[in-house]
């Protein structure tokens, strides 16, 4: 487990507000995963796989539910997210993860990795790699919850399911290997690992660039903007009615990003 993920797992539970955010984010991820698998189990042909996926989908939705309930308990205790920094969020979603944002699932995989586009082997390989990673992450999160037995119990329960998910996807991949589809399985696993790595690489690049840009903005704030800041400081905002802006033709006004 990389050092970064250790510290992220620790930070996620460091105060009630972050805990709430983490629980709600896990709930969303699990619910998304569950929905995807509900769709997948309808189109797969292999009856054994369909049976597993049915249980897998129910597990994911139940996990979402467990996280939701715990988050609701925290909210009922008065824990609330401070006002959402919406100014930041869309940018992160839309650009820092690039155009992949629309096409990545909760585990960071390309959404293209759906059963109908990848085929059954590709889809199971994707699930296998994702579930292995999820199990590792959840084990890590569980370690930091010694002082919160209720939340810890959720992770213990989920980890049992994750073991089953890793096991059945592994068994199916082995079965297909034995049926002479070894190279197909190998290629699918490489693709699954690669798509995760590619997504993580892009996110890392975007985050580094974002950190650097913010640092530059702070420098600008104390240099270039200093005189403007001193002039504007404490200015009382204008009250009363303001007449609408006019000027230019209708189309010119509509084309302008300002007026």
């Amino acid at each position, binding site marked *: 487990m990389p050092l970064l993920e250790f510290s992220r797992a620790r930070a996620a539970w460091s105060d*009630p*507000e972050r805990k709430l955010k983490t629980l*709600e984010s896990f709930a*969303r991820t699990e619910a*998304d995963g*569950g*929905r995807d698998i*509900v769709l997948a189990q309808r189109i797969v042909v292999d009856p054994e796989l369909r049976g597993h996926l049915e249980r897998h989908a*129910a597990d994911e*939705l139940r996990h979402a*539910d467990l996280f*939701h309930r715990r988050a*609701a308990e925290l909210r009922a*205790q*008065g*824990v*609330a*997210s401070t*006002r*959402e*920094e*919406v*100014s930041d*969020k*869309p*940018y992160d*979603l*839309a*650009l820092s993860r690039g155009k992949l*944002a*629309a096409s990545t699932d909760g585990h960071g995989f390309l959404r293209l990795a759906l059963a109908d586009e990848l085929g059954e082997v590709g889809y199971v390989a994707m699930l296998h790699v994702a579930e292995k990673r999820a199990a590792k992450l959840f084990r890590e999160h569980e370690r930091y919850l010694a002082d919160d037995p209720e939340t810890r119990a959720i992770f213990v329960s989920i980890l049992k399911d994750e073991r089953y998910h890793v096991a059945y996807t592994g068994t199916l991949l082995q079965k297909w290997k034995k049926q002479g589809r070894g190279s197909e399985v190998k290629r699918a696993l490489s693709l699954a690992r690669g798509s995760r790595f590619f997504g993580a690489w892009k996110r890392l690049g975007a985050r580094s660039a*974002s950190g650097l*840009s*913010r*640092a530059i*903005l*702070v420098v600008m*704030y*104390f240099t270039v903007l200093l005189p*403007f*800041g001193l*002039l*504007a*400081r404490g*200015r009382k*905002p*204008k*009250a*009363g*009615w*303001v*007449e*609408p802006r006019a000027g230019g033709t209708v*189309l010119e006004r*509509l*084309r*302008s*990003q*300002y*007026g």
Partner: protein
Amino acid sequence: MRILGLGAFHRDAAAAVVVDGVAVAAAAEERFSREKHDASFPRRAARFCLGEAGVTARELDFVVFAEKPSRRFERLLADEMTSYPRSWKSFPKVLFPWLGDRLWVRGRICDELGVDPEKVLFVASQRARAANAFFGSPFEEAAVLVADEALEWAATTLARGRGSELEVLGEIHHPHSLGLLAATASERLGLGGAEGFGRLYALASSGKPTRAAEVAAAVRFAEDGSYELDVERLGEALGPAREAGGPLLWSGGDRTHADAAASAVRAIGDVLLHLARELHRRAASENLCFGGALASSAELNARLAAEGPFRRLFVPPAPSDAGAALGAALDVAHTLGKPRRAPLAHAFLGQSVSPGAPVSEGAAREVVERLAAALAAGKTVGWARGRFEWGARSLGNRSILASPLGKGVRERIGATVKRREDYLPLCCAVPAERAAEFFDVPAGTEGLAPFLHVAARARNGSAEAIPSVLQGDANARPQLVDRGTDPALHDLLVQFGERTGVPVLVSTSLNLRGDPIARGEADATAVFERSGLDLLAVEGELRERGG
């Protein structure tokens, strides 16, 4: 003329397509991304809307963005400079997304949709809200009031609509903003960011405005009909902020937080009435179209209708951020195309639950009969059919329904189905022609009731019959269902009435807490699997728990 309207980067990003002045499709991005109040660029919603309208992006005449991005940037920059140097921490956070992305939204739209830059237009966000309120209304002429948080500078707008003309009469600029007042109150009470307004109004109905005088002192009414807001004083006036981890005090002996909410909502109502009087003086109309985030409060709308100077009131299904996408498109359609006015007859502008799978009349009738029987037997059911609703309210196409008879319904739905706080209201549906038997719907609000935008008092006697849909001082949020607009839900209500004597059903959105309302079959199934719903009907198919 084919126009795509887009709204993004605040809350509830959305897209809408207007063809020859008629809204053909509209949807919020959250329904597709499954992220509540998703504010990111609405590419999935846009794709859906174009598909529904049968138009490719290249065939569009215009793409309209519901904001003037440079004006908003100017306002944010000015805000940061006003609090120099205390703003050094927030400055990079606020500026970063703008310099990297939002200022170049024209390019983004061209990249995403492959349209010519000449086709990309911008309508100021408050004007877009005003257009959404007026052009969707049934009125040929009306006064238009918009009250919201400021995106560019304007936080309040007065306008006048006539035919295909919309004229802005005056604006009040940030920080004198009713949206800011509501946001401050919601923040101090720990009610959450984007969802805070709805929670604030709901909480208010459990309290008394005991701090009204203190809150009123933070608002100054000017003689010219405008108002000033002293935000710092407002914070103190609301009392101490709720601590993280502290309980929300709204029931029993200590209702401190509900009282603070009621005081804030009272002050907001007072300012709205003050503005309405000024607007009436300037626009001299009997009709008022109300838009912006404040218009989503059924209680404020009821007060505006009862105490305001206008005889008739209209609020569109999505009055705020999402609605601005449709408003921007309607504004351009009417400004440049001058089509015949086409009032919004219903809010079913979203995606079908099962595209391409029409349900036979017989199957639909059978579903209604079985649902009526299950509801009369005390079961809680989910119903997903047809196109999903435009706006934040479910109006029967993605709904959870239950019998309102007896006690404990609210608690059961709150605890096992929706998993939400008890103080949040449960809406109800009633056949329009029988609404007067149960509720005193304020006169002049007939246009609001189908969209769940008005609160009504329970009539004497009905409070005992339907206690679970009443809140605070016997107030309810009834949806008046017209047979012509929604025959299936109307039939269900009538059949339920025949079985129980009361044609009223609890009706709330088909989602779990924190999730957006269900879009398609997979979402509906997920809600069914994860909640305590007894039955789920998806078009002609019924699923029973354990069945």
